[in-house]
């Protein structure tokens, strides 16, 4: 119980921190980006929109920073994240709502697959240490872990979409097809294969190596030796004694690496023009659509925090020592 409370507390605190960073950053930057942006949109925005923007970015120097901070919070809680400049006059929340499902689907499934496969391979690599395959996985994992996400995406795109023409070059689904509802599914899957594979391949290595190291560490622990002395079958020792304990630090690492995976997936989306948050973020950055950028950052931070919280819950379920922590 105490553990849960602590995690919730941390979640709230970090959420607050993320939101505050979001607010503070534009005010801290040199070179007054807001002015630049205003100048850019001078002719194109209505006076009301301009006024709103001025408000939002604190160019209205009537109000003190603190007051603006409070108003920022008010706006957040009322769901008003502003209006997108690129997709004007769409509200930011509308733009987000459209792209979030794509990213959730892509990144969500990629992360789950990468973690599961990576962990299983890590168990194998550690258990069969000394064999060619098991040891060969290590440098392979190291290599794929060092490849920049976006570059692998480019290569995959070039090879399979452009050269071989087996997969589409862009998009989340075939925008020209007239299929509706579930009939769109095959097209969606077809479009998702390449970006999904890219993320999985790059993320897998990290988890493989972590699990492998954990397993090796755990295997030198006394209870594994005891299990072996008890004459238990190999498989039981591997899973119920070793892996079951080794997976715990992996879960901890999972939370931490989630942020990194998200980042990489953003770049992947850009390369594949996949209509998710990453792609939208890219558009926003290139066109200096600050309201949208900030909203996206907010959303991503909160999503990662929530995911972290769920990981912590799973960890608490798996490690009985956690409940008695705090003594």
């Amino acid at each position: 119980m105490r553990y849960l409370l602590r995690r919730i507390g941390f979640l709230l605190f970090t959420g607050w921190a993320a939101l505050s960073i979001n607010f503070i950053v534009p005010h801290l930057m040199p070179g007054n980006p807001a002015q630049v942006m205003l100048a850019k949109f001078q002719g194109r925005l209505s006076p009301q929109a301009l006024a709103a923007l001025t408000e939002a970015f604190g160019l209205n120097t009537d109000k003190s920073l603190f007051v603006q901070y409070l108003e920022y919070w008010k706006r957040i809680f009322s769901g008003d994240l502003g209006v997108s400049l690129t997709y004007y006059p769409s509200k930011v929340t509308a733009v987000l709502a459209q792209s979030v499902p794509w990213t959730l689907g892509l990144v969500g499934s990629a992360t789950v697959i990468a973690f599961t496969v990576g962990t299983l391979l890590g168990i194998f690599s550690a258990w069969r240490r000394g064999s060619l395959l098991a040891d060969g996985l290590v440098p392979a994992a190291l290599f794929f872990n060092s490849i920049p996400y976006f570059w692998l995406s480019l290569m995959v795109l070039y090879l399979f979409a452009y050269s071989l023409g087996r997969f589409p070059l862009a998009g989340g689904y075939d925008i020209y097809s007239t299929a509706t509802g579930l009939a769109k599914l095959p097209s969606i899957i077809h479009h998702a294969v390449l970006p999904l594979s890219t993320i999985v391949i790059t993320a897998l290595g990290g988890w493989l190596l972590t699990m492998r190291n954990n397993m090796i560490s755990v295997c030198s622990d006394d209870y594994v030796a005891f299990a072996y002395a008890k004459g238990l079958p190999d498989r039981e020792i591997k899973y119920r004694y070793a892996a079951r304990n080794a997976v715990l630090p992996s879960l901890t690492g999972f939370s931490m690496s989630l942020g990194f995976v998200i980042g990489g997936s953003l770049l992947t989306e850009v390369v594949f023009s996949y209509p998710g948050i990453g792609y939208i973020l890219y558009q926003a950055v290139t066109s200096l659509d600050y309201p949208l950028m900030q909203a996206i950052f907010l959303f991503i931070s909160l999503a990662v925090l929530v995911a972290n919280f769920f990981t912590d819950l799973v960890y608490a379920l798996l490690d009985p020592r956690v409940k008695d922590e705090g003594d």
Partner: protein
Amino acid sequence: MGKARRILRNKKALTGAAILVFLTLVAVFAPVIAPYGPNETRFLPGQPPSREHLLGTTSLGQDIFSQVVWGTRLTLVVGLVTGSLCAAISTTIGLVAGYFGGWVDEILSLITNVFLVLPGLPLMIIIAAYITVQSVVPIIIVISITGWAWGARVLRSQMMTLKNRDYVKAAVIAGESPLRIIFCEIFPNMLGLIVANFFGAALYAVLSEAGLEFLGLGNVNAVTWGTILYWAQNNQAILMGQWQWMVVPGVLIAVLGMSFALLNFAVDEMTNPRLRR
């Protein structure tokens, strides 16, 4: 020296170091190796690889091979500087939090955990996007600010283990100042972990640098492998069939990253006896 021999015997360390040394040499001797300047645009644009242009030319008429060679310099410098800065921050915070404990630790750990959880790349993008000045310096700063958390946490736990060792307690009783204890007594015993952390930070720096530059942040007119990729992407290199414009810088980034990853893994192996075969 036993340690030197161990380093030489470790294949991963050797490979990683060899790659790093090779790339450093390329960077240092860039003017000699590259046939042309990186920004000379006097060549025929869009050329495929040939004897005069080993990697062909860009859509703007620059020699790709020269760009790649010259680009080694800035890429390496940014990578190493960022890695060092990031490692310095994580080492300081980790060591201080671990040693002093108490409320110092609580505050620092809270900050560390917050930065750990916040997704790095989006944060970097946001911050970098606001910077209107075209330079690599903001990139360095931004990456360092967002990437130190993991190393800090690892070093903090190691410090907490070590500070309870007898020789530290003896030093405390002898009246050594905390700073002296941290740097003269404990630090040498953590060297392995600190070095491994540096390589980890360098890897993170190289990949983040490439990512940000690819998105067009930083200085797109500087010549680094990341910016080469930016221009390649912006000029539809893949669709134009100029695959080498895309492939080569990317492979190099991966290779550089891998050298740091290897060194990181190797130092980890050497300092953690359980991982040794």
